[in-house]
Structures are given as C-alpha cells and as structure tokens.
C-alpha cells in the first residue's frame, strides 16, 4: 500500500513533465537533422533473414536494408544501418539513436502510441510455429501446457499463451530460441510465418515443418519518430511506401530475397494501380 502510494506520487511528478512535451505543430526536427547532416540512420533487423541479416562478410543486408537504401537515395543522403532488436527498436527511435525504423514490426495500436507508424503498411505476416515433423502437430490446441520457444518482444507470445495455454519460453534472440528448439527444449518455435518459411526454405531445418494454419495476420509498419508523423518525414515515408507498392518494387525485392510471394503485396499493387496506365 505504502509502496503504491509512493509510486503514485512519483507518477504524478512525472506526469506533469510528460504533459509539457506534447506538441501539435510540425517542427520537422528529425527531417532537418537528416538533411543537414547528409546521412540517415535506419534501424533494421540483423537476425531476421532475409529481411535484415548479416551476410558472410558481416554486412547487414536484406529486403528491408534495400528499402532503406531506396529511402536514402530518394532523400539524397548517405545511409547508415543500425541493427535493432524487437525489444529495443521503438526505444531507439524515441531516443533518436535511429531516424527511421524498418524492422519487421507489426503495426499494433499500442505501438502507434509510441512511434509514428506510417500508412500504407508495407508487408504482412501471420503467426505460426516451426515444429519437428516427428511430433506431427495438427492444431494450435496441441500446444496446450507444452513448452514453446518464443522471442522477447513478439506481440503474439501473449496471444498464444492466453488463447492456447502454451508455456512460452521467450529468449532475447532468434538464434537462442531456435537453438533451444534444436536442443529439444521446447516442442515448437512460435514466430512470423514468413520468417519460418524462409528458414525452412534455407534447407537447414530438414526435420522441421510449419504444420499449423497461420493466425492473426498482421500488417507490418515502418516508423518515424512520433512527432514526425503527419509532418514532412511521415508524409514522405507514406509516399515512399505508396510508390513501392505501385511500382511493384516490393514484389521485386520479395523475389530477389527469395521470400514466398504474399497475396498482400499483389493486392496492394492492384489497389494502388495507376488508373491511366493500368499498372
């Protein structure tokens, strides 16, 4: 009781300062900073093949890195990519460590309160599991009360444990979680279906399969700092994404990086088709 009262007092004190920072007018601070510095810092994944990963020479490459390159080119600035984790990507953006985040992030309502997720969304994925063929899982219910490996920071950990009673063991990195699966410490690895598909396609997971029907299909969003949403930077990124869809650039990148074609991208291309050229 005493403790919650002191927290109350603290939160009141902080609440006053927090309310002072709310602003309405566009300052375009981050946009101006990027342009005057001549360099944009983009946060991408480095452990999420093939969206953002390290190649044999240690460089971070991938579909999202290519998207970041497009952005830097259009702005006429240099590009620096910074690897981020699911659990720190929004904080990096908030603290100004990165100017833009393209890091396989699902677009969720609570995340929109923290960072400026621009529309339209650039990709989508659902939740699925990678599980050993030997177990022949049939339905999500098979996960009940079983240890299931996950990744700290994925929003569906909560859904899968609440809806199906799976015991989520969440690791800080994908590598640790998948190692735990291979060590047979859990019966499945719950993650984005698109990532699991590309892992399976890599041939390194011969004994594994993606046996369930994907759930909770959720669009991905790239994000600018919250204050830049609806200002120059946010509007620019919306325009970039629109053009990526309309020109078929994302479909092209999907093919380049060996990602299974998703119906979402095809549908978006159709949705944003130019009414004159029809493409």
């Amino acid at each position, binding site marked *: 009781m005493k403790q919650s009262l002191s*927290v109350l007092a603290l*939160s009141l004190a902080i*609440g006053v300062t927090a309310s002072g920072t709310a602003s309405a007018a566009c300052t375009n601070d981050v946009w101006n900073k990027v342009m005057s510095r001549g360099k944009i810092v983009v946060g991408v994944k480095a452990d999420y093949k093939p969206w953002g990963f390290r190649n044999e020479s240690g460089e971070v490459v991938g579909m999202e890195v290519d998207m970041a390159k497009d952005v830097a080119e259009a702005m006429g600035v240099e590009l620096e990519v910074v690897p981020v984790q699911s659990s720190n990507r929004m904080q990096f953006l908030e603290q100004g460590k990165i100017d833009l985040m393209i890091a396989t992030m699902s677009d969720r309502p609570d995340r929109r309160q923290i960072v400026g997720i621009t529309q339209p969304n650039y990709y989508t994925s659902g939740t699925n599991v990678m599980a050993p063929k030997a177990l022949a899982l049939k339905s999500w219910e098979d996960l009940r009360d079983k*240890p299931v490996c996950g990744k700290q920071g994925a929003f569906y950990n909560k859904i899968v444990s609440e809806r199906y009673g799976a015991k989520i063991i969440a690791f800080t990195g994908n590598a640790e979680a998948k190692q735990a699966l291979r060590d047979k410490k859990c*019966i499945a690895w719950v993650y984005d279906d698109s990532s699991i598909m590309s892992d399976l396609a890599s041939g390194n997971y011969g004994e594994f399969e993606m046996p369930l029907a994907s759930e909770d299909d959720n669009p991905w969003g790239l994000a600018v700092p919250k204050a830049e949403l609806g200002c120059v930077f946010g509007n620019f990124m919306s325009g970039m994404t629109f053009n990526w869809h309309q020109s078929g650039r994302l479909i092209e990148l999907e093919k380049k990086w060996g990602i299974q074609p998703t119906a979402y991208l095809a549908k978006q291309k159709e949705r944003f088709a130019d009414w004159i050229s029809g493409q």
Partner: protein
Amino acid sequence: MLQSIQDYFRALAETHPHWNFIYLYDPVQAARIGEGLVMTLELSVLCVLFSVVIGVVGAWLQGSHLTWVRRFVQGYIQFFRNTPPLIQLLFFYFALGQFTPTYSPDGWLEVPVISNVGWAVISLSFFAGAFNVEIFRAGIEAVPESTVEAADSLGMSRLQIYRYVLLPLAFRVSLPALNNNLVNLVKTTTQAIVIAVPELLYQLVSIYNDYSTAQNACMVLMFVVYVVLVGILVMGMSRWERRLRIPGYGG
C-alpha cells in the same frame, strides 16, 4: 481506496501513453510480476547460500598441502572470475546442457534434468563463489600466524583449526567485502534473462513488450524492487556484522 488507485492509473495511462502502470490495475500483469519476484527471490537466496558455501570450502582447499588441490581451486577462480557471467550462463545452459541426462514426456522433447533455473543457480553461484574464495582468503591471511601456531601446538587438526579458529576470525574480517559481492550477485541475477529464466526482469520486459506503453512504468518498478531487495540484504548483513563483532578485534 484500492479501486480509486486503480482507476487513477487507468486514467493516467489514457492521458499519458508513456506512463501506463498496467501492473497496478490489471491483475494478470500483477500476477506475472508476482511470479517474477518470487523467482528473483528464489534465485537470490539460493545463489547467496551456495556461493558462500563455495567460498568457505574453496578458501579451506586453498590452504591445502596438496599442490593439485590448490591448483584446481586457482583454476576455478581464474575461470569464473575472468569470464563474464552472461557468457557463463549461455555456455552452461546451451553447451553443457547438452551433456546432462534428459527425460522425454512425449517421445520428442528432451527435458534436461537441470532446468534453465537450475543452470542459472549453478552458474551464478560459481561465479560469485569464485570471488568469495578470494574474499575469505583475504580474511584468513589477516589472522595472525601466531594464533594458528597456538592452535597447532594445542594439537588441533587442520580442519579443527580452520573450523574453530581461522574461519570465525576470518569471517569477521571478510564480512564487508562479502557484503559487496553478495549485493553484486543479487543484481547479476537479472542476467538470467538470456536463458529465459522467468525472473523479474524477464517478466517486466515481457510486459512492456506486450504493452509498449508500460515501459517506463516497468523500469520504475525494477528500480524500486531492487533498491528494496538489496536494501534488505545490506541491512541484514550489517546487523549480522554488528552481532559478530568482538570488542577489540578488527576495526
């Protein structure tokens, strides 16, 4: 009263998206924090106990007449003191974990007999234990040679001298340094998150990943809990120190 506090924080979360104290009004999140707290306490208590035992035994072995025993203790200290606890946790759980016996509830799963919690206790105890050996050695060396000689001339065995003469005196000298090391140990338990031990940090990180608006509130709680937890430990240790004090001996 409770209801009004909950309502207050629910409203605060709506007006200030960075200050969502979700664990104060959502019983599910409060329960997760409770579980995390229990796990942190469990880890802390077990590691403190084991590391002190390791320290006492190790310091005794260090005074052994047998060269290889001394070398073994020295090797143990070097290994655990010179490597980061984070790497030790990963190494123990993933590398050594493969060589421990397992059982299988369903024909595929190989549940190791030593769980991730078990490995965290083992690895953190050995980590802090290595420092404790050195701390107790310093205490032992502070006991005057003549005291040991006096005990020796009374016909006490080596173990008896250690048990009844050296350790009681050395322990008093060691307590302040031991205090420091145990405080560090309690704080190091947060690193067990890398092998997915569901302690307090793990639960808080999970909560703010599920509710990204709750991050600051989770950080605040983390500080509050550790200030209190370490405060209790330090208070207990200094009380112990005072009780063990021999007038005229040591500072």
